[in-house]
């Protein structure tokens, strides 16, 4: 601001209340043109609420919004769009029944007349190619058929397309949480290029490394307030974590040297594409990682294991009841009309009965116990599930699975939108539960999370291509097997 760069957006004393909850408690924020601002904070710190207000989809109870020096009084989504402010939300906003090209048309009213579909397709294809080379998405694909990572890529690319309206600021709310390391890297590199060309960006992320490497300035939020603002160079990981508050330093995972085969086999599963040989084996009390690039058959194998838990399936055997923690919570997890307590209890209905009827007290008790264990931030468990922030909704899904009778817990990249503090707590919880004899199958695209696993299987094109014990696990090995082409894989398969 002092060096005379023009300020795109200035927020002054913005407040927002949801009943008794103060989501935003007097927030000031300024974004200069051609800069990337990182926004960090725990789940429920108010980041998403603030961005909704900036994008025009949420309303401030108090405070001022000025865009390019001009105070906005009747701010709305349409007004934001006209002023060149775009937002990529955490809850994906594409219409699942339309194609990629049709979804692009929705935000570009100028694509009309004959051949709009073709022009729309060209527009989005060019942008996808620019940001994510080798993305494998066709503009005629129906969005509902895309994997969550691909939907996220389309959403991001669409926000950066330009027709007749200007583009000054793009808000990215956890854009990398559904992307694997490779595409996340592509996106961050693109954001840097766009910023150098004068487009500003606000990046919200729980990956502190991304924030530090990509952003010019970092804003830290806690309990609805901005608690620190500084250049990215002035922060390091430890200072960020300390400023966000309330997390202890991370201990290196103490890998328990355990020999496999010590305990009974709980899961034995062979991916559909696998002809013979390699199969996934999980013993009681183990945490098994499923690695590789996003969408290479990990989720499919987890779903096959869910199916095998109720009806016999060739190639998959399961030794205990199964529960799944969904990663794509809108489609696979949340019951939007229900309270938090009902959402937690649904996997444990049989255990909540008293006589023939379900007991409200038992349901409430189960929910309370897990609220304490993984600190779900809410004044009342009878509130609707959608009153929670994204990360807290994810915690509810953990509570649902861990509170059930399941001996095998499947996790489908479940840490999307979960802050570091919570992640560390959940890691400990998983370790604890594994010690008590539960078996975990954990699909993740984060190297940090694989560190917590006793054994890791790397997937590529629907097959298991590598089988790594904890002691042999390195990031290079995982990346190498994720990308390894033709010859190596063929050799490996012949050998096995």
């Amino acid at each position, binding site marked *: 601001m002092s060096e005379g760069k023009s300020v795109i957006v200035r927020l002054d004393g913005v407040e927002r209340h949801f009943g008794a909850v103060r989501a935003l408690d007097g927030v000031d924020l300024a974004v200069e043109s051609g800069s990337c601002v990182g926004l960090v904070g725990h789940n429920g710190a108010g980041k998403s609420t603030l961005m909704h207000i900036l994008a025009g989809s949420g309303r401030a109870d108090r405070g001022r919004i000025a865009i390019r020096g001009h105070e906005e009084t009747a701010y709305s989504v349409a007004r934001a769009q006209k002023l060149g402010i775009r937002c990529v939300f955490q809850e994906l906003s594409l219409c699942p029944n339309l194609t990629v090209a049709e979804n692009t048309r929705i935000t570009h009213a100028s694509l009309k007349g004959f051949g709009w579909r073709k022009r729309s397709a060209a527009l989005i294809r060019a942008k996808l190619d620019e940001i994510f080379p080798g993305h494998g998405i066709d503009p005629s694909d129906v969005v509902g058929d895309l994997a969550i990572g691909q939907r996220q890529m389309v959403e991001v690319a669409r926000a950066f397309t330009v027709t007749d309206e200007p583009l000054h600021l793009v808000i990215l709310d956890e854009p990398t949480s559904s992307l694997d390391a490779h595409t996340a890297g592509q996106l961050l590199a693109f954001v840097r290029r766009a910023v150098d060309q004068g487009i500003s960006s606000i990046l919200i992320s729980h990956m502190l490394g991304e924030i530090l490497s990509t952003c010019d300035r970092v804003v830290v939020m806690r309990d609805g307030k901005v608690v620190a603002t500084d250049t990215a160079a002035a922060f390091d990981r430890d200072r960020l974590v300390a400023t966000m508050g309330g997390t202890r330093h991370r201990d290196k995972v103490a890998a328990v040297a355990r020999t496999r085969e010590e305990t009974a086999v709980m899961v034995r599963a062979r991916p559909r594409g696998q002809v013979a040989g390699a199969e996934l084996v999980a013993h009681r009390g183990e945490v098994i990682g499923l690695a590789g690039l996003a969408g290479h058959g990990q989720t499919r194998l987890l779903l096959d294991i869910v199916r095998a838990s109720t009806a016999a399936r060739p190639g998959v055997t399961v030794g205990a009841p199964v*529960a799944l923690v969904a990663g794509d919570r809108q489609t696979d997890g949340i019951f939007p*009309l229900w309270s938090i307590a009902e959402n937690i209890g649904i996997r444990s209905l049989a255990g909540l009965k008293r006589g023939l009827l379900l007991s409200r007290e038992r349901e409430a008790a189960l929910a309370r116990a897990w609220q304490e264990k993984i600190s779900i931030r809410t004044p009342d468990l009878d509130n609707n599930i959608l009153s929670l922030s994204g990360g807290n909704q994810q915690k509810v899904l953990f509570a649902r699975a861990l509170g059930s009778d399941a001996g095998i817990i499947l996790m489908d990249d479940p840490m999307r939108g979960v802050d570091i503090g919570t992640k560390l707590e959940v890691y400990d919880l998983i370790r604890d539960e594994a010690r008590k004899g539960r078996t975990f199958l954990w699909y993740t695209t984060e190297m940090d999370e694989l560190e917590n696993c006793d054994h890791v299987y790397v997937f590529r094109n629907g097959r298991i291509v590598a089988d790594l014990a904890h002691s042999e696990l390195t990031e290079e090995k995982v990346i190498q097997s994720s990308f390894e082409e033709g010859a190596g894989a063929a050799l490996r398969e012949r050998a096995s």
Partner: protein
Amino acid sequence: MTAVRTLLARPWIWSFIGALIVWLAAILFTGGYGAGGMITAALSLAVFMVIVGIGQMFVITLGPGNVDLSLPANIGLASAVAMKVMGGSNAMIAVGLVAALASGMAVGAANYLLIRVLRIPPIIATLSSSFIVLSIDIAYGRGLQIKPPPAFADFTNIQVFGIPILAIGGVVFAFLAGIALQRMIYGRSVLAIGQNMRAAWLAGIPVERIRFFTYTLSGALGGINGALLAGYFRGASVDIGNEYLLSSIAVVVIGGTSVAGGKANVPGIWGASLFLVLLLTMLNTFGVSAGVRLLLTGLIIVGVITAAGGQKTLR
């Protein structure tokens, strides 16, 4: 005061208020004459809507696209089956009821099989099965002129202090259905499937078993309704169930159940059934022509749904 407010916050209260207003309008017109009789008659007719309405409610709550359009044909066939099996003999009443129930369950199960095995959308599957059932009914019930057994016909007309015994049974049944919906695993499962079928499956709910049970339940209730109607109207006929195509859906919607699924309301079905029956009674006492009566029925239903639908949406 707060009691009134919490009462007003219940979505089903509006259908009862509507029924009350319509009833008051009717007796105001007649100058108070026949007020009690009107309620007795309304209770007798409303109970038939309640029985099929509850079945329809469970089906609609399964989620978008789920609806049972085969109820009219199902009711018609079951009424014929019941009368034929009873054969006018008091000794065969129980057997006839079981036969009607079985006929209804068979139709419901067939509906589900069409939906599941042939993957036809429920609206088409139940509509086409209703044509088949109707043909069977026409062939089976041709020239059927069997009167119900006297004891059965009398039973459907018994009144206790002016309240039909069928209505008392209907209230007890609705109470049990409310328990099943809110406090039993079956009801919870239906509500979960209606909100998000995939999430319900992943949360370990036996989705297909629940859907099968629900369509069969709707069919079974249609079957029982057919037998009771035949007793009440002194004989079976092919078109005895015709009015229950629209009214079964209307009472579900007016009663506060979400057409989008996942949210259901049992008390509202009673209120809505009384409202619909009393509305017709009122228009009849006013002596309006058939055309005007249909027009007003349509407009009033739209009005009630708008008034009751003032629910806040989250976010």
